[in-house]
């Protein structure tokens, strides 16, 4: 039975995140300000000040402490959340690995922004890509609606497989841009998320637990393998949860979005807000009879290698557009896409493009030109910059 009870609201990615938090009502939130995450925490803080939520908010003195406090609270058996960007995400870097290794379902919004130096406060994916090995579930959002919807999936998935999760929105492009979106009702939201029932907690005094032990050479490896197995499970559970989401809210989500890939010969792979612009480019070229399509990355970690390869293997050629630079190497999404195709024995050509660093604009005709390159069979080993 699909639930059609929703309100239409004008929200930004930041306020949509705050709205989800209002409905989910986490027990603890640790906040430290950084542009462009501030609308999330400020909106939520106002909600708390006006008695709309009972969440305990800790105004910590750094992002490292924000993640530390979130970890402490999560080990205490309660739902705990935080939000950050860029330098903040980089500062809490060691704690990301620790949250993951402690198997705590901490939930975080990242308003993705460029990393210093030079310092830049605008939207791109450098910060979250820098954290892709830290053992967190990472889900990209195209717009405020996806920020909101992805939150349901991420929080539920995180608690089910005991892996912390981050929902990513593009800094400014998504976090600060107003759009029209559908908001679910409080009751159904709370029912979908359910209560957080941890197996272990610091507040269990009858059967006390020690979190954060030392594992020597003879055991550390096994713990990492155990985490890797959990990530495999997460890949499967993601599908189950998107099904549950469809049943409850009537909307279908998958590992990624296939946009006009049916009968397409050339495709672009892209993540984040520029996907919207890219879809416009696809529409225009399709109207000219050109067989193009788009695959929009949503679940980035764990990466759905097999499914992605299946979705793209019938293409003649692909371009991957990354909004992050991996200095001295090929960029992140490109690398994972090539891995996926090669693992599926697909030899089709893939070109790498980097766009939008430091919040620089990407225009529709630039993306159309990328498609034209593919159609003209202009592939390249060299990374091309769209600027």
């Amino acid at each position: 039975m699909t639930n059609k009870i929703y309100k239409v609201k004008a929200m930004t990615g930041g306020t949509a995140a705050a709205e989800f938090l209002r409905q989910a009502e986490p027990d603890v939130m640790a906040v430290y300000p950084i542009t462009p995450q501030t609308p999330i925490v400020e909106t939520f803080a106002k909600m708390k000040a006006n008695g709309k939520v009972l969440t305990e908010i800790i105004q910590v003195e750094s992002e490292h402490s924000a993640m530390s406090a979130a970890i402490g609270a999560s080990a205490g058996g309660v739902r705990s959340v935080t939000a950050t960007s860029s330098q903040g995400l980089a500062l809490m870097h060691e704690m990301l690995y620790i949250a993951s290794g402690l198997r705590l379902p901490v939930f975080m919004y990242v308003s993705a922004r460029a990393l210093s130096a030079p310092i830049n406060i605008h939207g791109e994916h450098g910060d979250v890509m820098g954290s892709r090995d830290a053992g967190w579930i990472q889900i990209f959002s195209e717009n405020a609606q996806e920020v909101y919807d992805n939150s349901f999936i991420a929080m539920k998935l995180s608690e089910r497989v005991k892996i912390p999760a981050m929902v990513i929105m593009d800094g400014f492009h998504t976090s600060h841009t107003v759009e029209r979106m559908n908001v679910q009702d409080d009751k159904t939201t709370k029912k979908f998320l359910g209560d957080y029932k941890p197996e272990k907690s610091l507040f269990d005094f009858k059967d006390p637990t020690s979190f954060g032990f030392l594992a020597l050479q003879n055991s550390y490896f096994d713990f990492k393998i155990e985490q890797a197995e959990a990530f495999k499970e997460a890949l499967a559970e993601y599908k189950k949860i998107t099904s549950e989401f469809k049943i409850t809210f009537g909307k279908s989500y998958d590992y990624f979005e296939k946009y006009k890939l049916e009968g397409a010969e050339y495709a672009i792979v892209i993540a984040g807000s520029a996907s919207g612009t890219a879809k416009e480019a696809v529409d225009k070229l399709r109207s000219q009879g050109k067989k193009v399509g788009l695959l929009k990355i949503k679940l980035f970690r764990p990466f759905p290698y097999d499914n992605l390869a299946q979705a793209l293997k019938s293409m003649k050629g692909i371009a991957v557009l990354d909004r992050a630079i991996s200095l001295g190497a090929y960029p992140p999404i490109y690398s994972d896409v090539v891995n996926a195709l090669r693992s599926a024995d697909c030899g089709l050509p893939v070109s790498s493009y980097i766009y939008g660093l430091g919040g620089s604009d990407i225009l529709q005709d630039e993306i159309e030109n990328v498609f034209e390159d593919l159609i003209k069979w202009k592939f390249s080993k060299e990374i091309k910059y769209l600027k």
Partner: protein
Amino acid sequence: MNQELTKKLAPGHTTCAGCGIPVIVRTILGATKDPVIVSNATGCLEVTTTIYPYTAWKIPYIHSAFENAAATISGVEAAQKALLKKAKLKKSAKGGSAFGGKAKLVVFGGDGGTYDIGLQSLSGALERGHEFLYVCYDNGGYMNTGGQRSGGTPLGANTETEPAGLDSFGKSRNRKDLMEIVKSHGIKYLAQANVAYPNDLAMKAKKALETKGPSFLLVLQPCTNLWKFPTSRYVRLGRLATETNFWPLYEIEKGNYVINYVNKNPKKVEEFLKEQGRFKHLFEEKNKKVIKEIQKSVNGNWKKLVEMSGSK
């Protein structure tokens, strides 16, 4: 084993033979009957008590990282507030609550994890006024990693990263006045204690644990391994530290200084220094001026303390 003393921390931890850290932990944990949750910074205590598959802790315990034991406990405290709120709501709704009483939150960190890398998170937690007790076991250096100097290492000490040699007499600067740093946060109770005076430590632990809001204990812990003295003498060294006024015992309660132990005839600080291998080089002719410097600083600090306490 002693059943009474090992209710919260069991033996079988791999602290050095003759290390007083477990005595500090047991004394403090024994000062309350309420349930206790411990947050522990990376260091001697943490590593020796939690090597997989064994944990010596018979109470809930969390170690997350080196510099954030206070930030971690801030999260635990918030979780406790949230759970108590829920229990209250459940109680009023159904007449029963899953969560019992309020637990005491205790943090243990070494001087490395407190004076230096952990100072920020301690300061933040104190400023926010969380209800927890922070215990710094001060052995004057990064001992778990082999004796490197910290902001808590005293003047003249030979350490691995600021060693004594032909061109150096060891640590060239005085240690930070951590008590004053913590006091400046305006907390209601903090005290300087010494593992060699367990009754005094127990008294202070009890007061600290009964404080509403943050409290802090700075406890001297002579390190047999890196201060270089026989394994049987941590208590002797601890006593000498206080008997020479190198480590006075005092409390700061709501801003009022109270000295707990006054030496009528304080011993010369040399008596304390000469027992330790880490100060051996100070007894060379060219370094004797450093001993004078240390004595001057000990005298000066004691005088200041006496003035602050308003006693004669």
